[in-house]
């Protein structure tokens, strides 16, 4: 409390400081709003195409059978506990946001090792019964080579995004990208006043 009381400006400076703080906060809220920040707390796949470079990933998922069952988060963030889920999501998301903001995205996006582990575990999370089938439980000498050291998509290569994933791979796909930052009511107002 003593620290905070030190920050409180003297009486005659209060008004300008309140205004300045307001500008500062307003700018921050504006940045959060135009970046659809609250959507990042949810699980909607539309959130992932807030950045348009994810359009190929969205479009390919939308045309796969996984569309019916899974959303992006079901595979791409861990589900062992809720804290890890949001920790990983925040870490990964902030990295994505930074790269996107700095325009450092590569032409073809590849998943990083950490992400691979998460996806692999999520494959198993849903498809566990495929791995625990008693017919597959026999342990031969080659178990490491053929069973333990591979990832699901070493064989299931097209699942679900396919093998073509450059940023320009789906030029005409209909993807629910965020539209203009100007809200509709404002556009209406502007076009009305123009007409008048």
């Amino acid at each position, binding site marked *: 409390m003593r620290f905070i009381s030190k920050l409180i*400006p003297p009486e005659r400076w209060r008004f300008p400081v309140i205004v300045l703080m307001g500008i*500062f906060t307003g700018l921050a809220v504006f940045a959060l709003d135009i970046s659809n920040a609250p959507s990042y707390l949810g699980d909607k796949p539309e959130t992932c195409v807030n*950045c348009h470079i994810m359009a190929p990933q969205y479009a390919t998922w939308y045309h796969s059978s996984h569309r019916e069952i899974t959303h992006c988060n079901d595979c791409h963030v861990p589900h062992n506990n809720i804290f890890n889920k949001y920790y990983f999501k925040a870490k990964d998301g902030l990295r994505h946001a930074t790269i996107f903001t700095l325009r450092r995205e590569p032409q073809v996006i590849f998943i990083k090792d950490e992400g691979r582990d998460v996806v692999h575990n999520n494959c198993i999370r849903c498809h566990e019964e495929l791995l625990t089938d008693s017919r597959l439980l026999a342990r031969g000498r080659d178990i490491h080579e053929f069973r333990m050291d591979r990832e699901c998509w070493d064989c299931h290569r097209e699942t679900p995004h396919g093998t073509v994933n450059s940023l320009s791979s789906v030029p005409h796909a209909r993807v629910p990208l965020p539209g203009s930052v100007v809200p509709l009511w404002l556009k209406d107002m502007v076009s009305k006043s123009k007409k008048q």
Partner: protein
Amino acid sequence: MKSIQEILKGKPWLGWIIFAVTVIIVFFLGMLASSIIERRAEAIFAYTPAVTFPPDEPRNEVWGELFPREYNSYMKTSETDFKSKYNGSAMVDMLEESPRMAVLWAGYSFSKDYNQGRGHYYSIEDIQKTLRTGAPDESVPSPQPNTCWTCKSPDVPRLMNKSGIAEFFRGTWDTKGTEIINHIGCADCHDSKTMNLRISRPTLLEAFEAMGRDIEEVSHQEMRSLVCAQCHVEYYFNKEIAEGVDYLVFPWKNGTTIEDMESYYDELGFSDWTHAMSRAPMLKAQHPDYEIYLTGVHAQRGVSCADCHMPFISEGGQKFTDHHIQSPLNNVANSCQVCHREETQELIEDVYSRQDKLLENRNILETLLVRCHVEAKAAWDRGADERQMKDILNGIRRAQWRWDFTAAGHGNSFHSPVETGRIITGGIAIAQEARVQLARLLSSQGYFEEIPYPDISTKAKAQEYIGLDMEKINKEKGLFLENVVPRWMGQGREREKREYVE
């Protein structure tokens, strides 16, 4: 502990540092905000095509310049070399396959000619070729109204926007021969500004309104079926809406099941034609593909028409929707196998087995209906009156409506085998009941023998049996195709050259 005011009094440079840090933070926050806006604007520009043509541009090749992959795959609907067990991309003469149909449609133009259609590429050519549109020339009009053009071309929304909906339908089919020359294509399903899917035919909007649904509320996934449902549905021509106009309507006011539509027609007292032999007030079911699909398991699981008939494909480094709209049986890998992990041949056999089994009973119903018409005619000939025939004719109407509903949609047996089976079974029961009533009536007239089943083993025999002079009809059509159609198309292209100066 000193307050910040006191600290600053002693060290004025610290005040400047706080000021500078704040400037830097706000500066970068502003940069971040403008970067977000910039990248969001990018999303709008990068995915909005640089279209220069007007919203109702009917020429597919003009759209194709901007979307070569989609256009080139769409033009593959011109292929006619795929043949599945019952369907495929080639034209199949259905009256030849099943001459019984000619008898079922006696007195209606379908008895002259009924084919399983080819791809969208042939929409104009095939409506010009079918005997149903007649052989109009300057002195003789077509027997059909302009309403028949509604599903055939992106010229249709262009003309509707110009003249209004009812005015578009007005007049006989031949009066728009030079106006409608482009086959089904881009503008039928796409908005020219955004390339989003759009409903270009008002009839679907009106049908949704009649059901109390708002088409603006549907999801993108539903739109991937609804653009097809603009045409692949049951419809009829309503003469009450505008004076002297065959106004196109989907009979969905009570719902989209066969019983819903039947009750709608009954309330309206509507019939498409009166059967030439039985004099029953008949209903002609038109390809109710969408309505049947809605009752199937794929629709219930959220699979749209486009998911199977227009799957995603890749070509080089690009992925796009395959616009070669066709039977998924010709493209099992990209359609069925996206979800179903069975072997191609197994999946195809699954489809065939449904078709085989349903066709078995549909043929029984078809034969029963031929008998119904023949026996009803015999009853009339022996002096039956309207009162005696009323229930029988209504039975024939209801049974044939069920037969036609399942036969007219070529994909029904697969899209919804259980519903299709239910409808056929109901139809058989109704037809048999009508025949019991007919037997009673005939015996009351003192006739106890079997009414002989006509020899309709070929299309020619069946058409002769119902009294069609096919030689004359074919000859007139030949002259029409030779003389009138080239003139229509030539004048149409000339008109386009004038209207769209490059």
